[in-house]
């Protein structure tokens, strides 16, 4: 689903990510981990076609992101760090707008909105203004938006950031329920979450991939395996 070759991004003199190589198979839920500032968001911005890399290649579902950007983008749903909402639109109006941008057929827009609203528990809130929603609901609208058009790949940048424990659990359950229908890449620095739902783990540190393995291999069956590994790999 995702193939990344020698992906590099430099901002002026700072190297954000340095020759990343990894791939993600279809249907996987992948945890993308790393300390703050390790290059997670940069990688995600490149994978969604928002930002071109300085060098290297990235392909999604076989389409090169910078040679066939529209084809690739059609297959990606993206939740940025901050849910991209227009406070003056209602949830329904907002989802309708995003469906139109994503080219969902007019006849299907309504059922598509119902589908994602049901999946994210937004049904009762459809007619509220997104600007008046609580943080948890904004996050859900952000995820609902990413799911519109049923893209094969979902890229979620810190989907549980800033949520309370209950909302956190709900969002995780939601992501877990997507397993099988979508390939999901999610970034977070909360390891317990990753342990609960991810099958593959990528750890990035100072712009380099330091671990790329299945959950079972990384934890080695131990309860604190992931934490130990994370701390060991991201040490100075």
């Amino acid at each position, binding site marked *: 689903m995702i193939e990344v070759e020698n992906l590099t991004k430099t901002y002026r003199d700072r190297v954000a990510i340095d020759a990343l190589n990894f791939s993600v198979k279809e249907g996987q839920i992948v945890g993308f981990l790393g300390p703050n500032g390790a290059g997670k968001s940069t990688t995600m911005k490149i994978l969604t076609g*928002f930002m*071109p890399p300085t060098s290297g290649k990235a392909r999604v579902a076989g389409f090169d992101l910078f040679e066939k950007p529209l084809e690739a983008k059609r297959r990606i749903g993206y939740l940025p*760090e901050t849910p991209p909402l*227009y406070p*003056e*639109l209602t949830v329904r*109006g907002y989802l309708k707008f995003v469906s*139109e*941008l*994503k080219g969902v057929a007019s006849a299907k827009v309504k059922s598509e909105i119902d589908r994602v609203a049901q999946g994210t528990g937004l049904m009762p809130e459809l007619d509220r203004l997104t600007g008046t929603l609580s943080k948890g609901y904004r996050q859900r609208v952000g995820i609902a938006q990413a799911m519109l058009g049923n893209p094969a790949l979902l890229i979620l940048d810190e989907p549980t950031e800033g949520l309370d424990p209950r909302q956190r659990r709900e969002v995780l359950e939601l992501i877990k329920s997507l397993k099988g229908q979508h390939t999901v890449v999610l970034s977070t620095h909360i390891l317990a979450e990753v342990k609960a739902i991810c099958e593959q783990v990528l750890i990035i540190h100072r712009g380099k991939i330091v671990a790329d393995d299945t959950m079972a291999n990384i934890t080695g069956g131990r309860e604190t395996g992931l934490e130990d590994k994370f701390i060991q790999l991201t040490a100075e």
Partner: protein
Amino acid sequence: MRTIFAIFKKELVSYLTTPWAWVVFTGMTFISSAFFVGLLANFKQAHEVARNAQLGWTQLPPEYQAFRNLTDGVVVNLWSSVLILTLFVAPFLSMRLFAEERRNKTFELLMTTPIRPFEIVAGKYLGALGIIGMTLGLTIIFPLILAAFGSSESGSALEWNTVLLGYAGLLLWGATNMAIGMFISSLTESQMVAAFVSFAIALVWMLIRSVATDVDEPVRSILNYLSFDSQLQNLIKGVLDLRPFVFFGSVIAVCLLLTHRSIEAQRWT
């Protein structure tokens, strides 16, 4: 096409559900009404003077002649005032176009959905045209009032050709201001900065003509050519002139291209 229309619709919804557009509508209506009432008073006064003069209109000084009919006395002058008003209100409408997307972080959404940047620019600009059209559309009420209640020596109260050509000039100027404002808005995250810079550009443009009188040829001709009021003066007076359409059309096209470049370039930073 559908995505352009979707963005256009969303822009109008955003404008009309936030207070800014309504503040601008109110300001526009209030100030242009004040101009209108003032011009009507001048008009009435000129007619009284003419009635009391022995030889009627022929005796009056030239500045009174324009007030002989409603079209030249009221509408043409009104359009010139609205032209200046547009320069003040357009930045407040255009400032949010891209600056707000960047502050809300929705710019990333637009850039990661399968649409091309030019569709974003086109949709946004159509929305901008819609809102400036509505703002300027409010002023068409004044000629309608005159047509309903006024009269003139030749029968019909207004020469609609003149009125509408002037109005076309006004819309053209509004469209140009929105294009400039949109480009400026695409450069910054702050709406206030966007409004201020767009306004500064329009203000300098307005002052070009007064600078032109103090300089020598050939700079004077160039400045005169570039000044928007000399470009528009024929249209406002009701003379069909295609040059301003080419001139402002080019300015708009350049601004749209620059906006396109600017949003493409932002992805690199």
